[in-house]
């Protein structure tokens, strides 16, 4: 084997600036006719030497590896050649170094180094090329474009000179910045790089519904569609194809989003693939085996960039160190990725090579359990000439690992608290709490509020005096001036306390179902009306004194006197009075008279009393009423009726009599009428007297 070194460089002619290809060679055992060229100049003294190191300290990795090279020395026996080379302009000239064995008939040369020349030195017949910093390729800023602030997708003045951010994979709580204040458009990245998805959009941490604005063919037309969109209430219209969002109103706090990042040729969310996209975005060094890294760490990952000072190198640090991978820039200008691990064998895909022998159990350093591996093949054995110990690192008992990185840390004040009804106002200044209770799923009625004034219940019309009841009032719902045919007649009658009924039989055929949904002790009657899909909720307040002006909530056109709601009538058999009090009539059961606000009933008992067989006879009529209040019968009338005849003969007299009573009760009542013979003054005869044609009439709801 004979090692041959081939150096190809591209210095410029000092006067014309034209690149002058220079080929230098060293070592080997054959003429320099390699790589299709015959103009190789002999004199390369040795291979360049490299130093490279990973950043490491007690907390773990601190940086990837970038090689540094020592100088490359060329010395020729021809001083004129060295002089001619020295007269070229070498600074920043591209340079590659290849090495190979020239013994084969068709030798191959591996790329050892790709670099640039930082400086040269010509002395003592030597040309010394100082290799430039190889980290230059990794020092490029990842973000380098800014919003112009010239309108449209370049944003308004708010966005001027703001960096255009980039995101790959899944990233969380990325803050949106205003792009077009007039149209409430917010950007979450470079509009030229479509995002896969806005998963969640939040205002002060409160997420809203999302509707998607699809790609419209161009960035400008997509932006126009987003501007024209009407976001769902409390939510956002999103256009991931231009990385923009329109929130439904001006956000009250940080507007943030969980994002699936850039699509590029296809959406990626694995670490190696994302690294590849990052370096490709700035035409940086190639990743050697991105798919291999994806397989090593098959995690769903993401990274967001918002700092124009961040370089590719620091981006790779952020991406790899958290997933136990390390990156190293090779001298050949490519980036290699490898796992940091002491473990071998099948548990790590890197070490599943095919050994020539049988796999065996081996002990990794410091491990008490053996692992399955091909020790001779999978892990290279290197023989050490000498060893020295340089540092010790404390054992680690706990490793905390952050995931779902939050790219916008929010303060307490930037997170939405509970929204109370008392803190919330309608545009007219009305507190939401003032309109409680609300009904779940209630919908906005059709202009009923606007029509209240037109049909408002006035105090005069709304307060009923005793005896006025029942009320009948009509509620209209109109749209503008036209009656839209929600027409409902309601009759509400109370008797002292609160009871109510609804007459829902009258009115236009299009009126909806009207029901009473609740009556409370304070006199509030909740009436629920529906019409089609609309729902109307009305509250009618009725006091024991009459209907209050709150009935104006319902609105009514007029009030008409009601009719008598019912008559109870009793016709009894003839009765002869007795010296003991006896019942003529008693209600077999209690009956309601609550058909009016005051629950008034008029009870009249009438009869004819006939003293044809007696003289000096008298009797007492008593009327009792049980008001249903637990007190039992109370006597409301006690009236003596009598006859005295002086002609000494039987006298036949017949007198009609009636006894009206008025009863008021919220409860069902009972009525009882009794008779009892009594002696009249100056007389002794207590014989019975015929009571004939007895009739009891109770008029319920009398007025």
């Amino acid at each position, binding site marked *: 084997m004979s090692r041959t070194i081939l150096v190809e460089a591209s210095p410029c002619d000092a006067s014309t600036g034209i690149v002058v290809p220079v080929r230098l060679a060293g070592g080997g055992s054959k003429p320099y006719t390699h790589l299709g060229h015959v103009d190789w100049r002999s004199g390369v003294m040795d*291979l360049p030497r*490299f*130093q*490279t*190191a*990973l950043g*490491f300290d007690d*907390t*773990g990795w601190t940086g990837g590896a970038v090689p540094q090279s020592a100088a490359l020395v060329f010395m020729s026996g021809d001083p004129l050649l060295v002089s001619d080379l020295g007269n070229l302009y070498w600074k920043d000239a591209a340079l590659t170094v290849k090495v190979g064995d020239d013994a084969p008939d068709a030798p191959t040369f591996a790329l050892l180094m790709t670099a640039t020349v930082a400086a040269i030195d010509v002395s003592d017949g030597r040309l010394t090329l100082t290799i430039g910093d190889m980290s230059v390729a990794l020092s490029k800023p990842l973000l380098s474009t800014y919003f112009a602030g010239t309108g449209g997708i370049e944003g308004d003045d708010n966005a001027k000179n703001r960096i255009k951010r980039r995101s790959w994979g899944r990233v*969380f709580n990325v803050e949106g910045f205003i792009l077009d204040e007039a149209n409430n458009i917010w950007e979450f990245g470079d509009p030229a790089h479509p995002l896969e998805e806005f998963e969640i959009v939040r205002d*002060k*941490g*409160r997420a809203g519904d999302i509707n998607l604005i699809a790609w419209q063919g161009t960035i400008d037309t997509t932006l126009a569609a987003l501007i024209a969109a009407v976001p769902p209430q409390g939510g956002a219209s999103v256009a991931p194809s231009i990385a923009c969002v329109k929130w439904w109103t001006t956000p009250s706090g940080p507007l943030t989003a969980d994002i699936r990042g850039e699509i590029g040729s296809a959406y990626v969310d694995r670490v190696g693939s994302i690294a590849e996209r990052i370096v490709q975005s700035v035409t940086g060094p190639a990743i050697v085996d991105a798919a291999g890294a994806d397989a090593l760490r098959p*995690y*769903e*990952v*993401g990274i967001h960039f918002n700092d124009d000072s961040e370089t590719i190198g620091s981006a790779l640090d952020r991406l790899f160190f*958290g*997933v*136990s991978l390390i*990156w190293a820039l*090779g*001298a050949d200008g490519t980036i290699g990725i490898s796992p*940091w*691990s002491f473990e071998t064998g099948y548990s790590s895909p890197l*070490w599943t090579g095919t050994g020539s022998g049988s796999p065996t159990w081996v002990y*990794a*350093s*410091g491990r008490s359990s053996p692992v399955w591996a091909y020790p001779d093949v999978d*892990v*290279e*054995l*290197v*023989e*050490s*000439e*000498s*060893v*020295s*110990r340089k540092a*010790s690192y*404390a*054992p*680690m*008992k*706990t*490793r*905390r*690992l*952050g*995931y*779902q*990185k*939050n790219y916008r840390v*929010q303060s307490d004040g*930037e997170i939405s608290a*509970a929204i*109370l*009804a008392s803190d919330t106002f309608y545009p007219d200044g009305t507190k*939401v709490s003032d309109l409680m209770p609300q009904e779940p799923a209630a919908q906005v009625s059709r202009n009923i509020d606007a029509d209240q004034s037109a049909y408002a219940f006035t105090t005069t019309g709304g307060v009923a005096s005793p005896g006025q009841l029942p009320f009948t009032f009509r509620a209209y719902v109109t749209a503008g001036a036209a009656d839209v045919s929600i027409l409902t007649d309601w009759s509400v009658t109370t008797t002292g306390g609160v009871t109510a009924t609804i007459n829902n039989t009258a009115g236009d055929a299009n009126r909806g179902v009207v029901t009473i949904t609740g009556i409370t002790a304070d006199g509030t009657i909740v009436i629920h009306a529906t019409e089609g899909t609309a729902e109307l909720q009305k509250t009618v307040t009725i006091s024991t004194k009459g209907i209050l002006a709150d009935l104006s909530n319902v609105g009514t056109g007029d009030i008409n006197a009601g009719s008598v709601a019912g008559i109870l009538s009793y016709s009894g058999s003839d009765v002869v009075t007795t010296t003991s009090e006896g019942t003529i009539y008693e209600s077999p059961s209690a009956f309601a008279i609550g058909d009016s606000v005051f629950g008034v009933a008029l009870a009249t008992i009438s009869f004819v009393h006939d003293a044809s067989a007696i003289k000096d006879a008298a009797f007492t009529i008593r009327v009792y009423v049980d008001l249903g209040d637990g007190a039992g019968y109370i006597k409301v009338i006690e009236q003596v009726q009598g006859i005295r005849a002086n002609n000494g003969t039987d006298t036949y007299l017949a007198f009609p009599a009636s006894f009206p009573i008025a009863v008021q009760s919220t409860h069902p009542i009972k009525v009882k009428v009794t008779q009892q013979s009594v002696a009249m003054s100056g007389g002794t005869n207590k014989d019975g007297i015929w009571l004939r044609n007895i009739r009891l009439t109770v008029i319920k709801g009398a007025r």
Partner: protein
Amino acid sequence: MPVITPPVDAGLAAWLKADALYVAAADASIATTWGTKATETTIISPIALEADADTEAARQLRFFEGPLVADQHIVKGLRHDLIGKLIRVKTRAVQALGYDTAQFVFVIAAAESDTSDTTTLTVLKRLS
């Protein structure tokens, strides 16, 4: 007081105020053996899901639980290509810091000699 909208979920609010969600891998035997000499470290990863974070935290703890030492070896050849790789190292000398039998080490630095075809490797090795 009637509530129109409840506050943001407490778990979500906690995350919004933190820089990330966290999982922790802990080795009780290390804690018992080393007490306060043992470290607790934190890193934020680009991982999105908790299950993956659990796996990864355990993997990282296995590497760092150590204790680790940094050793320097002089090996033949120009071997800067070994950076970031797991290799086995064996010395010719006996009783040489345990390298008389091959040891698995992780290469964190490589410096090729300017004057000879040798390379100084700095490696991480488990001490126990």
